[in-house]
């Protein structure tokens, strides 16, 4: 792992601490590079969607995909700092998630123009070839970035 990748992981992790809902979900940055970001979502009973199977709620998987894709856009531009809110995000569920199993999301920004970044993400439980879900999104770069504490500390 190169220095810039280490920096990026730390950067994503710091960002997460400021993003309250991701912190509540316990999302952690596992790996990051300009090519993509991997986040981990720990299993917890409170985020279950179906008590019969213990599978996580689709909304949680959606939150993980949005967070990972957002950071993928961020990493793509790094060290340039540019915030990009989600314009739209679509998720396809291939199978239900497994009880008591942490979830991983690998997201990449495969294209970015001056205004818009395009992302794709795979949600899995350790084997990326056996995905739980796929997500495709677009993010729009903000023209003016407000000063954010975690961005400043990262510089």
């Amino acid at each position: 792992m190169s220095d810039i990748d280490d920096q990026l992981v730390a950067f994503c992790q710091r960002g997460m601490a400021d993003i309250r809902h991701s912190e509540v979900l316990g999302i952690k940055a596992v790996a990051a590079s300009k090519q993509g970001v991997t986040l981990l979502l720990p299993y917890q009973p409170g985020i279950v969607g179906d008590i019969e199977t213990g599978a996580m709620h689709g909304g949680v998987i959606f939150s993980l995909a949005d967070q990972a894709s957002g950071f993928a856009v961020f990493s793509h531009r790094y060290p340039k700092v540019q915030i990009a809110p989600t314009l739209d995000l679509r998720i396809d569920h291939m199978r239900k998630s497994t009880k008591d199993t942490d979830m991983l999301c690998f997201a990449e920004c495969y294209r970015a123009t001056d205004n818009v970044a395009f992302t794709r993400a795979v949600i899995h439980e350790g084997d990326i070839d056996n995905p739980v879900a796929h997500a495709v999104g677009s993010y729009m770069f903000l023209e003016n970035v407000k000063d954010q504490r975690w961005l400043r500390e990262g510089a």
Partner: protein
Amino acid sequence: MDLLSLVRDCRDTLTCKALIDHIPYSAFIGMECEQFGEEYIFRLPKNENNLGNPTLPAIHGGVLGGFLENAAIIHLLLKLDTPRLPKTIDFSIDYLRAGHHKETYASCEITRQGRRAANVSMLAWQTKKSEPIAVARAHFLMEQIIE
């Protein structure tokens, strides 16, 4: 109590709390549902834990997605007689305005219900319904709908 009896109880008593509580994720984001005749309005009260960007501050996009997806699931259960939870096949959301740190509302409409799949459209707003903060659509796999 099985799911179908739970749903029928909710319809009879005009309260959706038992059904909301049946899905643990609902409490995680703190969502509620209110019934007006045969209409359902879903409510997501202001909640620090649902924030995304802290400087704006704005509701996390993922929470809005989860709120709408869960609203659609509960809406389907209340409108159709099915003994099983609908399974999300796909879900797609367009963000139209920033979701501010305040109470958010949602309504759902079953666009089409087939034999196995249902198509639902969802709308989220804060100030007025004519100024939605997000719209979404989804397909759900339904099992054993009782005609």
